[in-house]
């Protein structure tokens, strides 16, 4: 019986047993539903706004000499995107329907009756200036009133320019925004500046990937430990230990749980990406052909995905073998939390540093950050933040991967020895000194 065959047998049992549990099936379905729901939130919001909360505003023009019809101008201004970073096109639209009415009196009655939210009366005073009055039950400082006031200013300016003899075509160039750019002080540096829309979305992406890796390590690491303890407490360990070596058992367990993790995360990733890709078409179906498509998040490149998978898998392996060794030291599920504490602290530290770095609380360009991103227990969290920040030289990635693999080999060696001795210890929780002795002597 070769090593590999037993590792596969153990992994296979672990995998099949885990994915058949009701908790796994329900958990995965819930996660998938959650991911798809989040991906479709913008469309849902747009749909609700477009249908449920449309606000009708009537416009009554009481002066005959307006050069341009104010209704399209008001419509465009009231429904302009709010300009929030990352907003999906169309989602910031105000949801106003603007139409003109011939009679102010009946329009005001219609507002009272609730047909219109407001009616805007436009007249000209003796000085020739336009005069705007908004008849509405809403608060004078409400959103509708403020937007209408801004739009009215624009109409007034257009009217004044008109009276000064500026043609509408010239007006358009008058209001064209200035060309403005933020750039790095270093010549030749082309990555998106901090805080720009583009950089913002890739920071978000690196952040999300870091969260996923952290979740995977902590969730499934604990799973590995609990599974080892289960075999100990049910005394299955003694039976299978006669058939397979501790190393085979441990490797099989880590790979089995790892495959479960891959399946679950793979499903989530596929569902998430598919939902994003389908967004445009679904938007068309729900909102009509005018709705814009949605692109993949900025910065989601093949390289980024590869890095995510590589660091996710390697990081999991490194932590999981230690979780397995920790699990082998106790014989009751209640003691698991205590014995996996070192791994929990270490992974949380790495995660928090990565979060601070991607949100700008820590300077991701600092020298100690470069060093920290090479440290095996930290790099799976931190390196992605540095990659999206465009801060990583290829040698850094290579070095951190080599160190990570090296650390896995060392951890595997130590963990296998602790595991070999630990699995037959029942009763009290071993001290640090004992663990050290076990790691040294193996049994």
């Amino acid at each position, binding site marked *: *019986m070769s090593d590999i065959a037993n590792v596969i047998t*153990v992994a296979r049992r672990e995998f099949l047993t885990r994915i058949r549990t009701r908790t796994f099936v329900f958990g995965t379905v819930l996660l998938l539903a959650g991911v798809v729901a989040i991906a479709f939130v913008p469309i849902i919001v747009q749909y609700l706004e477009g249908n449920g909360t449309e606000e009708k505003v009537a416009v009554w023009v009481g002066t005959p000499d307006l050069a341009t019809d104010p209704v399209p101008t008001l419509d465009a201004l009231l429904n302009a995107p709010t300009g929030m970073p990352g907003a999906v096109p169309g989602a910031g639209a105000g949801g106003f329907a603007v139409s003109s009415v011939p009679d102010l009196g009946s329009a005001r009655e219609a507002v009272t009756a609730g047909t219109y939210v407001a009616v805007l009366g436009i007249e000209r005073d003796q000085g020739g200036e336009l005069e705007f009055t908004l008849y509405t039950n809403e608060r004078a400082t409400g959103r509708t009133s403020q937007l209408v006031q801004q739009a009215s200013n624009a109409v007034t300016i257009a009217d004044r320019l008109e009276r000064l003899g500026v043609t509408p075509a010239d007006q358009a160039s008058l209001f064209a925004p200035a060309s403005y750019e933020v750039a790095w002080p270093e010549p030749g540096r082309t990555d998106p500046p901090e805080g720009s829309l583009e950089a913002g979305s890739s920071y978000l992406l690196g952040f999300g990937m870091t969260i996923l890796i952290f979740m995977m390590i902590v969730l499934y690491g604990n799973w590995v430990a609990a599974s080892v303890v289960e075999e100990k407490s049910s005394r299955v360990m003694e039976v299978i230990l*006669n058939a397979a070596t501790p190393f085979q058992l441990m490797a099989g367990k880590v790979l089995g749980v790892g495959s479960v993790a891959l399946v679950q995360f793979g499903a989530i990733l596929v569902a998430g990406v598919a939902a994003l890709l389908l967004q445009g078409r679904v938007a068309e179906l729900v909102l009509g052909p005018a709705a814009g498509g949605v692109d993949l998040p900025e910065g989601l490149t093949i390289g980024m995905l590869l890095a995510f998978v590589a660091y996710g898998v390697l990081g999991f392996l490194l932590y999981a073998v230690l979780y397995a060794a920790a699990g082998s030291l106790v014989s009751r599920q209640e003691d698991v939390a205590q014995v996996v504490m070192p791994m929990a602290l270490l992974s949380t530290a790495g995660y928090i540093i990565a979060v601070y770095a991607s949100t700008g609380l820590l300077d991701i360009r600092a020298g100690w950050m470069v060093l920290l991103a090479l440290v095996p227990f930290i790099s799976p969290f931190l390196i992605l933040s540095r990659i999206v920040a465009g801060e990583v030289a290829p040698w850094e990635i290579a070095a951190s991967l080599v160190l990570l693999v090296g650390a896995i080999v060392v951890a595997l060696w130590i963990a296998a020895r602790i595991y070999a001795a630990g699995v037959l210890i*029942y009763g009290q929780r*071993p001290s640090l000194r004992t663990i050290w002795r*076990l790691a040294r002597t193996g049994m």
Partner: protein
Amino acid sequence: MSLAITNLKKRFGDVQALDGISFSVAPGEVFGFLGANGAGKTTTMRIALGLLRADEGSVTWQDRPTRSWPRRTWGYLPEERGLYGRMPVLDQLVFYASLYGVPRDRARRDALHWLARFRISEYADRRAETLSKGNQQKVQFIATILHDPDVVLMDEPFAALDPVNVALLKAAVLEMRDRGRTLVFSTHQLDMAEELCDSVAIIDRGRLVTEGPTREVKRSAGRQVVRLATSDDHDLSWLDELPHVKVTRPGRDYTELHVDADGDPQTVLRAAMGRGESVLQFEVADPSLEEIFVERVGAIDTTERTLAAAPAEVAR
């Protein structure tokens, strides 16, 4: 050629679990490993299987260290039952067998055969935790021998079984012996050992007390047991006057006497017939293992010095 255990020593913290144990098990025999709780039976078995390392001494099978043999050579039934509670019975039997390299389909077929033989076929697809203790025990036994190991070590295999299941298990053990397998089991049920074992070893507190073929161990005391029933059982005083004879159990059906090594049971028979009584029963036998055990070790110690807890001493 045998399973040879030579001068095993193992210490857990302050406890000297094994203190120079030596004995050997001939191939193809059923061997009883007897001792009170905490005598060192489980530790000896774990060392023999390579699960634990001895401080000193060696265990060889056919002149090679037991650790160097392929794992499928060995079958091990631990004292504490080890089954995945939430895994169906058949699935875990196949799992255990495939760890020893048995192809899945063959493991499945053999497992179904054994389940039928032990009259628990209907539990094949049930989760193990839903089975009774006795049935779990039988499943555990199947898991131990499904890969048809050459040497089977069993720790208290008969505990928790009712008489019907004990008989089923005994038959299975004897059948395996007839197929040339070597079976070692520990027990503190001495009548069971006496019935089943070709040879036995008795250990106490990590030391070997005696070992050898069951018959010789029983004869090692040098005395014989005579069971006598006569037409007039009321007066037994004449028995006490015979040399080398001691009445150990005066009874209604028969009287049991010990005749020590220097005496001859036939003198008892002659004396009885000389008294003019009619002899209804006269039987000469070896002392039981239990008597030997009690004589050599003292009554079986029921205080828990449990075996499984012993390795926890590592943790000190």
